[in-house]
């Protein structure tokens, strides 16, 4: 198949998978019907089935992910809309998000080392609680693998949004501010979406936590991750 044809074919397939799985998710609202997860499985299965490889998919991938940069910049808007909540709860937000980010990284890398995972995998685990575009960049700068990190981020988002609310209740965390921050810190956008279902305050705090955790992790990762990699 010629290059242009293959390229168009992959773009159409990816967009179609996304729209179909998004529709499915919006209809049933079950966390296991995650559009990214389902679409990725579908496309990988298709590549395997047709004998095509990642090299064939790459040109289409480059073009489709091109808008990820401006999309990350767009995250400033929800943060701006929540600036009042942020100002009102400055200390708990900062302390809680930083403690949670450091704890989740330490737990992941500590356990990973114990299980003797290799350095690339460990590095890719580091920024897994941060929203994908930022996690991928942190991982790349630290020597990890972008697609591994993306998979860890999406999995963490699903885990946190499925198990997070029950765990918080088990720990007797009832304050909507605390619940929203915890879900946003660990499970970025997916956690924020669940927090939003609990209450508006929790949702706003989730968005704030997601942004702060991303910036904080990006700032500390170059110094913090190497501590676990020696």
């Amino acid at each position, binding site marked *: 198949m010629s290059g242009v044809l293959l390229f168009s074919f992959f773009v159409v397939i*990816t967009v179609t998978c*996304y729209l179909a799985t998004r529709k499915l998710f919006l209809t049933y609202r079950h966390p296991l019907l995650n559009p*990214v997860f389902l*679409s*990725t499985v579908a496309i*990988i299965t298709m*590549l*395997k089935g047709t004998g095509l490889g*990642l090299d064939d998919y790459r040109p*289409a*991938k480059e073009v*489709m992910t091109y*808008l990820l940069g*401006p*999309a*990350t*910049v*767009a995250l*400033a*808007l929800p943060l*701006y809309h929540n600036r009042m909540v942020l100002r009102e709860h400055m*200390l*708990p937000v900062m302390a*809680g*998000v930083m*403690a*949670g980010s450091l*704890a*989740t*990284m330490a*737990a992941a890398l500590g*356990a*990973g080392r114990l*299980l003797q*995972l290799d350095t690339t*995998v460990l590095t890719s685990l580091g920024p897994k609680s941060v929203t994908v*575009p*930022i996690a*991928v960049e942190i991982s790349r700068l630290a020597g990890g*693998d972008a*697609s*591994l990190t*993306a*998979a860890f981020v*999406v*999995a*963490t988002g699903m*885990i946190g949004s499925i*198990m*997070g609310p029950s*765990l918080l209740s088990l720990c007797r*965390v*009832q*304050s909507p501010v605390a619940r929203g921050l*915890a879900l946003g*810190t*660990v499970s970025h956008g997916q956690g924020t979406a669940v927090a939003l279902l609990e209450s508006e305050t929790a949702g706003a705090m989730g968005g704030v936590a997601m*942004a702060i955790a991303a*910036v904080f992790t990006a*700032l500390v990762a170059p110094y913090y991750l190497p501590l676990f990699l020696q």
Partner: protein
Amino acid sequence: MARKLFDICWQIVFLWLVFRCGVWLVGALNLSLPGNVAGMLIMFALLASGIVKPGLIEAGSGFLLKHFAFFFIPISVGLISFGGLMRQSGLELLVILIVSALVGAAVTGTAVQQLQQRRDR
């Protein structure tokens, strides 16, 4: 409809320019910060200082954020090269992801609640 589409397009171009500024700044100052994070911080500063009104980027940002998840699909397809790793240590990785996510959520949740209770007392 056409008007909305036009707004989305030029606003995305504007967000892209801010993104490029972030990438440039990080390179020029030799920071170990991702360029897109720098771009987001620049955008927040522009909004907070009132130089850019939120309405100016509402349509473009709304569109990109609504379909945020789309961009992760092509990236995740890269996992195809990690079939061996998933077969070999998939279960370990899943355990690590679950444990570390729960640790993080418990730490943030309890820390914030403690701080709030102390303040309210």
